[in-house]
């Protein structure tokens, strides 16, 4: 097998044995059996083992992730005490004289199918849990390990089709050197998790990666998006050198992390963090973040069965605001849509979820949900440097309507006598080409802007960023993207507004010189990228950056732009 090329999802290089994670349906044959009592005892034994495992996972999840997530496993435990399930399987074994595996999966299928057919969305979701429990007992019956990712005992590179939050919730993260997945793009769960953990990852490698063998030596280059199989001695040596350089650069950058991002000639920009919870807010400060350019609030809404209340949202936002102190904290309102389903929100299947009913569009029609979030946000903002940002704005009318609801929320809080921020800055994300081309129209209603490159690139290039076949189109340095960004920044400055960026591109060391040269005012990125980004900015003068940008804009191809920046910045940070 030749080397594999995928999407570079998290920078750095890792070398180690492959660990194939195959959470496949356990296989078995339906068989007639002789010893009925023995078979029933075998089934009961597997149920007991499953219960012991679940009790451990429950305790661990409660400790690590809180009771909401842990409740899922408590429900799983209850299923395994359910007389209807246990008796149903026993009866089937006794009457049909079949093996426990077959009896169990038939009973599970029946319940899962009944649940999946119900009208109530909440309960329909439980079909997944029933199947999950069924699979667990089945694995115990077959003697197949159940939690391969939690029991990792030596450092490995995890290779999988794709990883879901429930796969990684159980993962022993200290033993993971890197990730390789067949599916997924730059914002898949694996990619996001890898960047959060600072572990190299290549995603979207295609199914061929799954034909690797367990224990096979591989090298994952998450900066280039390449996986090398059986790297020879020369490659390993060069890897070690690169790794040493990467580490050295990282350490040097860390030393300067807290210093301001100021160019050689004294031009100052803001380098801030994209965060998702209180913990990541603290981590961001360690990496030298000067504030938060994007607080994703979706995390509050995932992995739970009911909508988070105003009080719950308030205390989370408040806790983060307190960590940030006087530093700016930009809170983005709920950005959710058909590609991420919530059990308590009927979004429905959409043909094109990325072009569908999502983000601000959804919030403007679910006014109660939106207003609850705005109320929590306004209350948390009181006495802090909090700003609100609306995602996916395409028209002036949307922005006006969103602000109207914000003002209603302010009015309500005033009337109720609750403390709130009365003058809050309102910004929008520039994610749609429509917004990017109409900055001058939106500027009178917006105090600031932030380019969300992940979506802006996807919409400009008309490529689904999760479709790995199209990964060649998802190119931040494409001339069309650079022109659009230049136009956006210029238009904002003309209107007297500052322009930030909170997509992946803002932390891309090869994009930073161009963005700086184009006049970007604020760079918001994942915290681990901050030290090196600041070091890069400090190594340049504005004249240099402008020259890099001007030349880049005259080029016709993305790889040409990338090589141009590379040659310019070589050895600079």
């Amino acid at each position, binding site marked *: 097998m030749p080397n594999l090329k995928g999407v570079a999802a998290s920078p750095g290089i890792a070398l180690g044995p492959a660990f194939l994670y195959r959470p496949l349906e356990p296989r078995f044959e339906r068989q007639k059996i002789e010893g009925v009592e023995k078979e029933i005892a075998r089934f009961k034994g597997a149920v007991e083992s499953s219960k012991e495992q679940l009790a451990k996972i429950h305790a661990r999840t409660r400790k690590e992730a809180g009771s909401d997530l842990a*409740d899922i496993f*408590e*429900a799983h435990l*209850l*299923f395994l*005490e*359910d*007389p*209807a*399930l246990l008796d149903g399987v026993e009866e089937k074994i006794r009457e049909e004289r079949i093996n426990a595996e077959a009896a169990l999966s038939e009973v599970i299928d029946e*319940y899962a199918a*009944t*649940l999946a057919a*119900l*009208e*109530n969305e*909440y*309960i329909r979701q*439980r079909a997944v849990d*029933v199947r999950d429990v069924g699979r667990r007992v089945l694995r115990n019956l077959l003697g197949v390990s159940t939690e391969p990712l939690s029991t990792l005992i030596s450092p490995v590179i995890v290779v999988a089709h794709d990883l879901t939050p429930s796969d990684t919730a159980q993962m022993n993260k200290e033993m993971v050197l890197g990730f390789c997945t067949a599916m997924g793009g730059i914002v898949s769960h694996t990619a996001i998790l890898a960047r959060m953990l600072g572990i190299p990852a290549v995603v979207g490698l295609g199914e061929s990666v799954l034909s690797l063998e367990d224990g096979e030596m591989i090298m994952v280059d998450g900066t280039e998006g390449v996986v090398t199989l059986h790297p020879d001695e020369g490659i390993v040596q060069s890897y070690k050198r690169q790794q040493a350089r990467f580490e050295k650069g990282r350490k040097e950058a860390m030393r300067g992390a807290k210093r301001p991002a100021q160019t050689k000639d004294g031009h100052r920009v803001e380098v801030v963090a994209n965060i998702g919870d209180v913990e990541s807010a603290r981590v961001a400060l360690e990496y030298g973040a000067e504030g938060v350019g994007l607080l994703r609030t979706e995390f509050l809404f995932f992995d739970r*069965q*009911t909508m988070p209340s105003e009080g719950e949202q308030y205390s989370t936002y408040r806790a983060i605001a307190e960590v940030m102190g006087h530093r700016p904290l930009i809170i983005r309102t709920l950005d959710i849509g058909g590609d991420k389903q919530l059990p*308590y929100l009927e979004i429905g299947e959409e043909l094109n979820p990325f072009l569908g009913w999502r983000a601000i569009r959804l919030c403007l029609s679910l006014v109660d949900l939106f207003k609850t979030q705005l109320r929590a946000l306004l209350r948390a903002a009181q006495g802090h440097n909090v700003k609100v940002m609306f995602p996916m704005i395409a028209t002036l009318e949307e922005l006006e309507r969103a602000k109207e609801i914000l003002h209603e929320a302010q009015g309500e809080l005033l009337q109720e006598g609750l403390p709130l921020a009365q003058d809050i800055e309102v910004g929008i994300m520039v994610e749609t080409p429509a917004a990017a081309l109409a900055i001058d129209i939106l500027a009178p209603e917006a105090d600031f802007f932030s380019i969300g490159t992940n979506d802006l690139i996807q919409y400009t290039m008309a490529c689904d960023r999760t479709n790995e076949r199209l990964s060649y189109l998802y190119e931040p340095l494409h001339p069309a993207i650079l022109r659009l960004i230049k136009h956006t920044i210029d238009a904002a400055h003309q209107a007297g507004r500052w322009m930030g960026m909170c997509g992946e591109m803002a932390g891309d060391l090869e994009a930073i010189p161009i963005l700086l040269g184009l006049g970007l005012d604020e760079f918001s990125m994942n915290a681990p990228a901050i030290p090196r980004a600041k070091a890069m900015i400090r190594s340049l003068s504005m004249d240099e950056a402008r020259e890099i940008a001007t030349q880049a804009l005259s080029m016709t191809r993305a790889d040409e732009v990338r090589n141009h920046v590379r040659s310019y910045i070589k050895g600079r940070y």
Partner: protein
Amino acid sequence: MQEIALTIRHEVGLHARPAALFVKTANRCKSRITVEKDGQEVNAKSILSVLTLGVGQGAVVTIRAEGEDEMEAIEALRELVMSNFGEEE
């Protein structure tokens, strides 16, 4: 036999935490307990069976208990449902 009809007010219906509490409470009693919705009657001690009723917010269920502690059983389940599964503020 004791019987009572109750309205489920909880926003998720008889599901997740409420369903778990309901089944756990039923399991503490010795009586045979059933719960019925729209003519479908199932074992109240079986979480899967209770879930398959698909009891959403605002649905009315009939609970029946038969056995030595049938009075206590009905009272315990009534209290649980009336307190909105302990979430009443």
